[in-house]
């Protein structure tokens, strides 16, 4: 990191997490994204803003949604986007992350978007690379662009973040999405609750300024926004909770449970969903769901991030 941004200028070299951002910096990304969202509605969805810039998407974990979203964002800005997928196992046995990074650096990219299974891997890269590094998800640590697009979506739907009651439900312990959103929403003045069985709520989470609930209905009571997290059944079942069936019964979001929330509640999910586990199909497809709008907004927010890291200003965005 090259230091905090002032009110109008983005000064960071990298975007590694939400934790270190100021509210002004978050606002700057969200404001900038508004202009970029419009581009995606045009017939010619392309601006020359990043022409001549090279963006490498380096993914050490499988991803369809995030990688595609970044790729489209880069291409709509006319950057040259290169995708590299590496399986983590081969990296552990062969080339180190540092060597991979230095090899890429030698090709003079401008921005490196990286997803990695190990927490802190983007920080390691940012320290040694000249290129800007964007964290596209590292272990359980952070997924900053997801939190930014989530904040963007809530802002669009509710007109504010300050005072919003947000309930994040599910596997908080293994979720980078939860961490980034907790940092982001609390910084912007929202009241954040986390909801789940004790096994999925990490020790000390209340120090991040959130309320903890272990009962779904109490946890989503009067909520303006409910964010359901994906349950990784393969990994969690039998150890963190007894069965998918029991999880769905106590922590799955159903139309019935939703009665507790505000009448104009919106439902979010970072995807991919397990229908019938953490979210019932009627809720996922129901009127409160903004899940697909999150995906649309993801492109705009990522365009804003790539743009700001390339030295753009909020005022010129979209022109």
């Amino acid at each position, binding site marked *: 990191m090259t230091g905090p941004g002032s009110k109008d200028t983005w000064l960071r070299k990298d975007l590694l997490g939400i934790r270190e951002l100021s509210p002004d910096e978050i606002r700057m990304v969200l404001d900038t994204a508004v202009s970029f969202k419009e581009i995606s509605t045009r017939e010619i969805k392309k601006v020359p803003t990043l022409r001549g810039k090279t963006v490498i998407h380096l993914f050490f974990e499988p991803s369809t949604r995030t990688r595609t979203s970044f790729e489209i964002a880069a291409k709509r800005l006319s950057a040259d986007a290169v995708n590299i997928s590496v399986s983590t196992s081969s990296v552990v046995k062969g080339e180190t992350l540092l060597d991979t990074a230095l090899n890429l650096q030698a090709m003079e990219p401008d921005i490196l978007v990286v997803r990695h299974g190990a927490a802190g891997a983007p920080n390691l890269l940012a320290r040694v690379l000249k290129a800007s590094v964007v964290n596209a998800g590292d272990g359980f640590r952070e997924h900053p662009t997801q939190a930014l697009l989530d904040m963007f979506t809530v802002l669009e739907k509710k007109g504010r973040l300050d005072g919003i009651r947000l309930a994040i439900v599910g596997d908080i312990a293994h979720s980078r999405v939860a961490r980034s959103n907790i940092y982001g929403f609390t910084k912007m003045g929202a009241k954040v609750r986390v909801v789940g069985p004790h096994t999925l709520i*990490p020790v000390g989470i209340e120090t991040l300024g959130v309320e903890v609930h272990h009962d779904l209905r109490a946890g989503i009571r009067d909520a303006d926004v409910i964010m359901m997290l994906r349950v990784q059944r393969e990994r969690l079942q039998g150890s963190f909770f007894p069965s998918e069936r029991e999880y769905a019964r106590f922590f799955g979001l159903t139309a019935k449970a939703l009665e507790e929330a505000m009448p104009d509640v919106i439902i979010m999910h970072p995807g991919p969903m397990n229908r019938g586990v953490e979210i019932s199909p009627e809720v996922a497809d129901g009127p409160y769901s903004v899940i697909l709008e999150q995906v649309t907004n993801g492109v705009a927010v990522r365009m804003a991030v790539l743009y700001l890291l390339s030295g753009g200003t909020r005022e010129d965005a979209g022109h």
Partner: protein
Amino acid sequence: MLVIKGGKVVDPVLGFDGVAHIWIEKGVVTRLLDPSLEEAPVPDGAQLVDASGLVVVPGLVDMHVHLREPGYEYKETIRSGTEAAAAGGVTTVACMPNTDPPNDHGAIAEFVVRKAREEGAVRVVPIGAISKGLKGESLAEIGELKEAGAVALSDDGRPVTNSLLMRRAMEYARTFALPVISHCEDLVLAANGSMNEGVVSLELGLRGIPATAEEVMVARDLALAEWTGCPLHIAHVSTAGSVRMIREARARGVKVTAEATPHHLLLTEDAVRSWDTNTKVNPPLRSDRDVEALQDALRDGTIDVIASDHAPHAPVDKELEYEHAAFGISGVETLASLSLMLVHKGVLSLQEWVRKVSVNPSRILAIEGGTLAPGSRADLTLLDLERTWKIEPDRFRSKGKNSPFRNWVVRGRVEMTVVAGKVVYRAEGA
């Protein structure tokens, strides 16, 4: 013949704390002379060392060191590790058996002893394995290890998960009067974590190792030690809960001793925020509260020993993502200076410090050392308590440069190290 003149000698075994001249002949301390008395004439040809202004203590005994040889010579060798020890004021190292092949039978212990005699700068006493291949399945050849020179038993680096095997090991070890050193860790609870489980692991998104992963095994081993009557030494204690249980067991008469490392006594989990993989160590750096409890335990005697858990690694083991990096800190060279910080901070008196780094480990391992009484082995360390210096791992004699204390400025420097009457280290400008 070597005469060390005018140093302040601190020897808690003799109850001595004052200026004295030390005469050393044929590797043995022959006289401690009061300088105010008429001086006995120093024989011609004797080597004289002026130690005025310095403190002279019985040589440090680091009972927890990984020398890596045989098998991992790229990380450390008996030669480089003992040279590092000498530079750290350590005159005896007890080396752990997790080499390749592991030290689980007499031939390996003999190899280590022979190699150390040929190339080692300081005395090396091997610690034999508890189980064959450190696999935790069946007993190592403990009697033969003892014959070959082993002074204790441990599967350090991994716990003995099988409680029945641990019971049998403790019983069998009694037959050969060997203490058992336990690396207390429930691997299932530790769940492949890479740092302490708590607020910092939450923030960094790293898998945590809870304090309970250590404590449940401390509880088990204390129960087994009480049942079997075997002297148990608990390695690298890191949590307040472990301290509490050890204190309570000791009060009941269980034969248990314990050690803590300088890094667990001086650093907290906060250090991991740097993402410096040199902060990755097992057990992990814990919370403020744990560090406080360890310092209290040092003060009240619950923790008997300060040992380095010297775990040298090469850059290829450390220059990785945090969760993929190896556990361990290269520490033998900084053992004296870092632990002296606790003397400067008032946690320990100098006398007490000498007990923790020399007297107690010698007693636990039942080896000669820990005193400068006439007739004892001439292993001694000369210290300048006031001299400040900067820790620069790149200048370590150890092959392992993996220290989280890089660039720390510490007060207290090893000026000279003498092993069996021979000067094996002399600091720059000393």
